């Protein structure tokens, strides 16, 4: 009776491990990868796609590539020998231009300080639960102004740097951030006008928004480069960058206005009525009740527009401003680096991807955090 099984009273038997094949990686693979013939086929096709794209790309971009020690494409090819990889040397050689454009080398510290201030501003805006909010907010408002004076120069004993020397990532950031921050107040006004009960206001706001949204940005940039000088008083000479900034601001204002309008539409009528019942004036009710809620809902959408705008800053290259793409195109049109277009586009693409992807992740995070309502 040595093999007699131990007896348990009813319901006291300890849980047995599940049969093999119903849990763990095997089960997971069976469920998610090989659940049916067609699914298996799709998995294999997918894996094959990964196999033909990823290893060759890694080999091209990293293993066989050349970064240092080449002065021209020819030298790159010499170093690489038979393995044809990417030649990143031009990025390395012209890194300064990619970041600052043709900003004078001895003045670049000003841009660096500006970058640091911008980073601090962003940190203040993004990091939640900071103590001493008020001085920090004042700092966040002051930093962009300080950066502006630093980068343009011409005052406080700093040498003036004309805007046609600006370029590279500096230019992208200036166009992107000016576009978004200057356009915010304009877009709030536009959204309020558009839903206003006063017909003239909503009429003009609608016309403006629909006009801007109906035409491609590139035509607006052409207007900035060719037509805007016609519209301004004779003799006034506007700098091209400023004209572009005006157009980009109006462009993003129209798009953000639509986002905010969506936010305003999502506020229940009861909120408007409650504000009226409290005897608040129009501006009081907007400032204290409606806009805080509407803007909160709109933030993910505004970040989305910002990502769009940031990507669209590349279009300035078509009207001759030297953003990173323009700098790179100038580089690969020289005899030393001719023919490196793929490397250039991949490099610039990576730059934009890092920026835009992290912003879109942040917007997702915000969306979750701000979702305080019941659902």
């Amino acid at each position, binding site marked *: 009776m040595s093999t007699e099984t131990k007896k348990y009273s009813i319901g006291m038997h300890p849980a047995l491990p599940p049969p093999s094949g119903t849990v763990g990686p095997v089960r997971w693979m069976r*469920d*998610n*990868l090989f*659940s049916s013939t067609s*699914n298996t086929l*799709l*998995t294999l096709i*997918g*894996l094959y*796609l*990964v196999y033909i794209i990823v290893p060759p790309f890694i080999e091209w971009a990293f293993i066989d590539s050349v970064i240092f020690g080449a002065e021209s494409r020819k030298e790159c090819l010499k170093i690489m020998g038979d393995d044809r990889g990417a030649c990143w040397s031009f990025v390395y050689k012209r890194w300064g231009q990619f970041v600052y454009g043709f900003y004078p080398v001895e003045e670049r510290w000003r841009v660096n300080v500006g970058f640091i201030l911008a980073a601090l501003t962003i940190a203040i805006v993004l990091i939640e639960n900071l103590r001493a909010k008020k001085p920090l907010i004042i700092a966040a408002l002051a930093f962009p102004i300080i950066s502006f004076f630093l980068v343009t120069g011409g005052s406080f004993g700093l040498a003036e740097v004309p805007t046609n020397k600006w370029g590279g990532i500096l230019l992208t950031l200036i166009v992107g951030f000016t576009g978004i921050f200057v356009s915010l107040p304009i877009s709030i006004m536009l959204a309020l006008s558009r839903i206003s*009960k*006063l*017909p*003239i*206001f909503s009429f*003009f706001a609608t016309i403006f928004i*629909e*006009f801007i*949204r*109906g*035409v*491609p*940005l*590139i*035509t607006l940039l*052409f*207007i900035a480069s*060719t*037509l805007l*000088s*016609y*519209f*301004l*008083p*004779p003799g006034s000479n506007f700098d091209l960058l400023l004209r572009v900034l005006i157009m980009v601001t109006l462009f993003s204002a129209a798009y953000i206005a639509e986002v905010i309008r969506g936010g305003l539409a999502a506020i229940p009528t009861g909120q408007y009525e409650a504000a009226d019942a409290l005897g608040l004036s129009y501006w009081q009710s907007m400032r204290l009740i409606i806009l805080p809620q509407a803007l909160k809902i709109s933030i993910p959408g505004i970040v989305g527009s910002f*990502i769009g705008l940031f*990507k*669209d800053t*590349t*279009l300035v*290259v*078509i009207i001759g401003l030297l953003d990173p*793409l323009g700098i790179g195109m100038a580089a690969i049109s020289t005899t030393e680096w001719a*023919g490196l*277009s*793929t490397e250039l*586009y*991949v490099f*610039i*693409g990576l730059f*934009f*991807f890092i920026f*835009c*992807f992290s912003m*879109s992740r942040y917007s997702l995070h915000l969306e979750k955090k701000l979702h305080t309502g019941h659902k």
Partner: protein
Amino acid sequence: MSGIQIQEKKTVTLGSIWRDKKSRGVILQIIAVIGILLFLGNIFSNTVENLDRLGVKVGFDFLDEPANYDINQTLIDYDSSDSHFKAGVVGLLNTLLVAACGIVVATIFGFTAGVLRLSNNFVLSRLMQVYVELTRNIPVLLQILLWHGIIIHSLPVPKKAEAFVEGVFLTNRGVFLPQPIPQEGFGWVWIALFLGIVIAIAFKRYANKIQIETGKLLPAIWVGVSVVIGLPLIVFLLLGTPVEISYPALKGFNFKGGFVVKPEFMALWFALSIYTGAFIAEIVRAGIQSVDHGQTEAAHALGIRPNFTMRLVVIPQAMRVIIPPLISQYLNLTKNSSLAIAIGYMDLVATIGGISLNQTGRALESMGIVLSVYLFISIVISLLMNIYNKRVALVSR
């Protein structure tokens, strides 16, 4: 209320007018109108003065002058002695062509990626996620340039090109395809095609009626497809194949004959489709997810098979959510096609707004034309969308 009080007291002061909501609204609007008119008037007088000072004429007479430039892809007959107006029409047709082709392919990409993104298959859903995130977060201009670069640099020159399939050559001057040239009598084939479509629609209606009355399913799709394809084919064969095929043949440095798809067009088409497809994928995903899971479960409980559940229950409900943003993506694609100018595809912006503008110096008129065409397109599309939205709007009890 306050209006009545004013009438009773009859003391209309500036303050009381300002405090009254209605009259204040009127005042504000009058101020706004005056402000906007002053602004526009100022711009107008500036423009007139500037044009006067520069000695630039205003008018659309330049449209009749010969354009004096070539366009590398034309859908209608065009040569450099034709007018600027015709050049603009060629450009507009090129814009519409790439937009239409892009919309078709972007929709296919987007729906495929959006549905696969939700599939249980881990590898595929991750792959689609990578596709969506990668293309959405890289500027479309860069993608256009990248594809153009790949086509120009990695495809062989025409001399070294080998036939991909019989008569098809992939070269860096474009893709050369055999072109069927319709001969006399080909018109009957078109008529047969039209008839086939009419019959297919009629049969589909009949099949629906039968299904509603008796529950019997007629193979409407198969009948429709075979009629639409078969009828023209029979007519075509009966007429003795009235088509001559022109094969591309290497002459000198390039192919002659056949039909060529230019690399600029391909790059633009590819890039726009892939870029917009990623956005459409997200829209489709959101649309499908917006359909309550109970719908799927109910369909399964009724014994409807999974693919039919998708086709007959989920997708129709998701479409209401999908269509409006989908249309605005189509509009975006059309507007983004203006980036053609970066790779030298001659669209509306590159012809009228580019070369014609530079040749004639008529910046105001040229940009005016370009802007109004784009506005016209987007207004038409948004009107159609409004009609659709009204039709599918959820009727709540």
